């Protein structure tokens, strides 16, 4: 029970807030719930589609393959692969921390780790959803800017990390 509360605290607090609002102002609470339901149902199909793709990618592109590609001393190629992996991997970023550390130990650059975590802000599979909510210019522009920034950020973090290691 405690662990359920800890993992789903947002769910339970939302229910609690709704309960309180329903007690104080049932009419506005009803309207809020209606807005919530219509927004949710309008993207439900898309959400189901996106998750079907998630399962497909996770099973058919194994993590071993990703480790092998990123672990290689591949110069610019490994940086590009890092950006691609970041945009494709799904799940909270912290889930891949251990995986990334494993790659780093196998000789991947700090830039690769950082680029994966930065380009994580773009999700290729989710682009249709982002377009639905925010429109083409915003979604596409955001994806391009994020990926363009990921590489310099990665190189900057790497430069500072290596400088400190020498000291």
């Amino acid at each position, binding site marked *: 029970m405690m662990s359920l509360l800890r993992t*789903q605290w947002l*769910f339970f607090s939302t229910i609690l807030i709704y309960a309180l609002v329903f007690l104080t102002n049932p009419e506005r609470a009803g309207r*809020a719930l209606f807005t919530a339901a219509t927004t949710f149902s309008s993207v439900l199909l898309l959400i189901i*589609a996106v998750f079907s793709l998630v399962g497909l990618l996770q099973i058919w592109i194994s993590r071993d393959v990703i480790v092998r590609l990123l672990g290689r001393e591949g110069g610019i190629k490994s940086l590009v692969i890092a950006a691609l992996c970041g945009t494709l991997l799904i799940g909270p970023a912290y889930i891949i921390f251990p995986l990334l550390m494993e790659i780093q130990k196998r000789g991947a650059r700090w830039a690769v780790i950082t680029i994966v975590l930065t380009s994580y802000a773009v999700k290729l599979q989710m682009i249709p959803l*982002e377009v639905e909510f925010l429109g083409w210019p915003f979604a596409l522009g955001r994806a391009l800017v994020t990926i363009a920034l990921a590489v310099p950020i990665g190189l900057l973090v790497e430069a500072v990390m290596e400088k*400190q290691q020498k000291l």
Partner: protein
Amino acid sequence: MFSVGLIYLIIIIICYTILWPIDRTKVLQSLRLSWQSLFKLLPFLIAIFGLVGLFQEFIPPELIALFLGKSSGLISLVISSFAGAVSIGPPLAAYPLAETLLKAGAWPPAIAAFIFSWISVGVITMPFEAATFGPRFALLRNGITLIAAMLSGLILGLLL
């Protein structure tokens, strides 16, 4: 919105159908994994959409415009970046929130910065990041990425 979802779903179903004769067990595994990840995230999604409903009903647009509007400029950029950094959640949840904020009059660059730092900067997960990679990397990466989030917002603002 419904039809886009339908087209996308049909494409995915075709992918599954093509892969079915190649490796049946792997396709079933994919389906199971898809269902599991969706099921795990479902309470969270319901909560987010629930909050979006409350948000639209109770938070006046003037308030959003005041804090996140274009007139507040750089302040709105800083506020939204830090708000994104302390929140945690899947990208999927950031989009409806961002849409609500934009409709209420928020400045697009600020919202782009919010999505960026929502996913790539994690104040709450920093202890774990520090334990895995060392505190130096964790602080450095999150700090630089937070600044990059604001930068990305500004660049996007120029592009749009």
